[in-house]
């Protein structure tokens, strides 16, 4: 079992580099887990969405106070420093989506029926800006309506009218959603495996392959009384051991981040899917190790291939936010099908054949990729040997 041991030694030497990927996986997973649990507000009652806005007023009058109170239903008020630049920063980095500025003397002119307007800085064409626009316009239009139709009214009584009228609300019924459409946070720890686990697998496999591609070493091994088939079998076993250990480690982390769902049927499918993906990642490492020579080149190819597929397949950014062209390109990588299968597995509520088939068909595509990678690398190795 000398060859087997040697392979494991090569893997051991690469563990520090692999730890980097584990570290990235853990830190990103922690951040995502924390932020997605914060946004979890799916109760039984409908709640108005609140947009973060800055309300900057050059004057304090009952009318403006009324507006502020009224907007409280649609907005969270964020206090920004009184510096133009800081306010612009806040808008750019989305601390607020809307900055409303009320010029001095607005109320007076408004009460006198003059042509006036408020100023805003907002994220252009955004839904939240439209939402706030709607609310501000409603308040001021209603006020103007009272002013123009009721003759002399004082500001105070105007605000009272407004308060009375604007408390009217439509009746909203929240139906139970048939399926969760946003499973990004739910299966994130599984999807993100596509980055960490495949990096580790490709790295390890490529390192083993690179070692045995070294002509001197290969010649030396073929001079020894170990039969080539036996040597290959040992390499295969070592790869299997390595992939198995990597998978188990990764799965342990997934369980940790998704502890409440571990005992569901969905997890069984997620596990199956990840196991198949592990085989595929190993095959990809085998392929890269067969094609690419030299450690530097391997790390370059690994980075581009793995990082690239994660970017375009919905690992880093939820798939529903990706463009159609991007997804079409992505469908030529196993990662796309892995993410797709994961998302579907997480949504399963029934486990009859027709529901499960959707997941299994995607998993089957990954198997095909694995076979293709494996076959391709065997062909390449055969061609290389005779050249």
């Amino acid at each position, binding site marked *: 079992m000398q060859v087997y041991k040697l392979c494991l030694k090569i893997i051991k030497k690469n563990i520090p580099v692999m730890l980097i990927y584990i570290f990235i996986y853990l830190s990103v997973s922690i951040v995502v887990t924390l932020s997605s649990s914060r946004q979890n507000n799916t109760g039984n009652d409908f709640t108005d*969405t609140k947009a973060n806005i800055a309300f900057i007023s050059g004057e304090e009058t009952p009318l403006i106070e009324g507006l502020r109170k009224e907007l409280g239903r649609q907005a969270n008020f964020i206090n920004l420093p009184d510096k133009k630049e800081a306010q*612009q920063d806040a*808008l*750019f980095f989305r*601390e607020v989506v809307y900055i409303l500025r009320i010029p001095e003397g607005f109320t007076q002119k408004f009460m006198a029926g003059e042509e006036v307007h408020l*100023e805003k800085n907002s994220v252009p064409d955004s839904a*939240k800006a439209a*939402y706030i626009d709607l609310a501000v*316009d409603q308040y001021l239009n209603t006020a103007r309506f009272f002013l123009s139709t009721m003759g002399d009214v004082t500001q105070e009584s105007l605000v009272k009218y407004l308060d009375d009228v604007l408390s009217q609300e439509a009746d909203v019924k929240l139906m139970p959603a048939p399926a969760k459409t946003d499973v990004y946070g739910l299966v994130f720890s599984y999807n993100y495996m596509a980055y960490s686990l495949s990096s580790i697998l490709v790295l390890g496999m490529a390192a083993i392959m690179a070692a045995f591609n070294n002509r001197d070493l290969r010649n030396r091994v073929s001079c020894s009384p170990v039969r080539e088939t036996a040597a290959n079998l040992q390499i295969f076993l070592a790869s299997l051991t390595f992939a198995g250990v990597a998978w188990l480690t990764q799965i342990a982390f997934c369980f940790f981040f998704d502890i409440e769902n571990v005992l569901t049927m969905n997890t069984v499918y997620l596990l199956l899917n990840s196991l198949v993906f592990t085989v595929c990642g190993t095959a990809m490492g085998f392929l890269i190790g067969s094609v690419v020579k030299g450690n530097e080149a391997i790390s370059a190819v690994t980075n581009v291939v793995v990082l690239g597929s994660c970017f375009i397949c919905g690992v880093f950014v939820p798939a529903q936010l990706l463009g159609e062209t991007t997804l079409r390109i992505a469908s030529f990588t196993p990662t796309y099908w892995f993410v797709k299968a994961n998302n579907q597995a997480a949504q399963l509520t029934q486990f009859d054949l027709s529901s499960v088939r959707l997941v299994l068909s995607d998993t089957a595509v990954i198997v095909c990729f694995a076979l293709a990678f494996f076959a391709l690398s065997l062909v390449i190795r055969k061609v290389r040997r005779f050249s």
Partner: protein
Amino acid sequence: MFVHIFANRLRCLLRDRETMFWTFMFPLALALFFYMSLSNVGKGEAFQEIDVAVVNDSWYQENQFFRTALEEASRGDDRLFNLTLATGEEARKLLDDGKIKGYIIAGDPPQLIVNESGIYQSIIKSFLDNYTQTFRAVEKVLENDPRIYQEVFDSLGNRKNYVKEAPAAGGKPDNLVYYFYTLIAMACMYGSFFGMREATDIQADITPLAARINIAPVHKLKAFLSSTCAALLIHLSEMMILLAFIRYVLNIDFGPRAGYVLLTTVIGSITGVFFGAFVSAVVKKSEGIKVGILIGVTMIGSCLAGMMYIDMKYIILSKNLPFLYWTNPVNLLSDAFYCLYYFDNLNRYALNIGALSCITVLFCALTYLFIRRRKYASL
């Protein structure tokens, strides 16, 4: 002599495939990946007409005001809704299938049926609220004085938009561009790979090649500067291609001040190259450790500048963590690009560039102090 060293160095570096990959191909690939995965994210924020159904019952048919209001809001280019008329069952099915955000049952007050809370559902609700509120207002006015019927309707038809977008003082708050700025900043810092080679190849106690150069009848600093110029030229050319790729192929906006954008890139490139030279001159460890330090510092810097998570940048900026802000070249560079894009004045840009220049000068000075040595205690 300058030309001789410069030209040969150029040849050397251009053939160093590993460095070329990390400083050139990798940022280009990353830019493309950013583009492919982020270009649609902004659209998630943008308003899209809301698919809504209304139950076409007798109440709806008979209530002309309500019908008009809804139809009005579903017409024209800046409409709120894409309206469908349906029976109650059909509407329910549309909602279940995810074809509409919600459906409306006319009435007093009107009813909205949705299956989740969200911004679009809230907008529909706001619209219905507004209808009810306006209706109530009209009632109130007419209660007070029934004679002014005509005036009321004139006034109602005269809805105004009270909020105007303030004149833009710079670029749009489109924060996706910022990711590309951090990427360029990171690529600038990757110039450190070149700087590291230059400083390594001139210190006789590190490589035999450097010892060999030290014996040649060439002034050491002159040799260093000649070859560093070659490194700078290559890195700058790479950066220009990256910049052109991001600007013209990926169509990322850099604001109107192209000259300053170029200046920033040049300074960034110099900072990067001398950062590498500095690390190589000061850290007396193996090349692997030096590369580790370069990548580590650049990645942590990029992370703090918001490349992986844009909020990170804003927290440092708004919570006033000046140390993390001013000592991080990746942040200073990204922020400089950001200022050029987003602000109409150059004040903060100038501060960024000033700080960056200080850091660069510091790197240069320390590099000089370490490599000017002519004789070594041991080789």
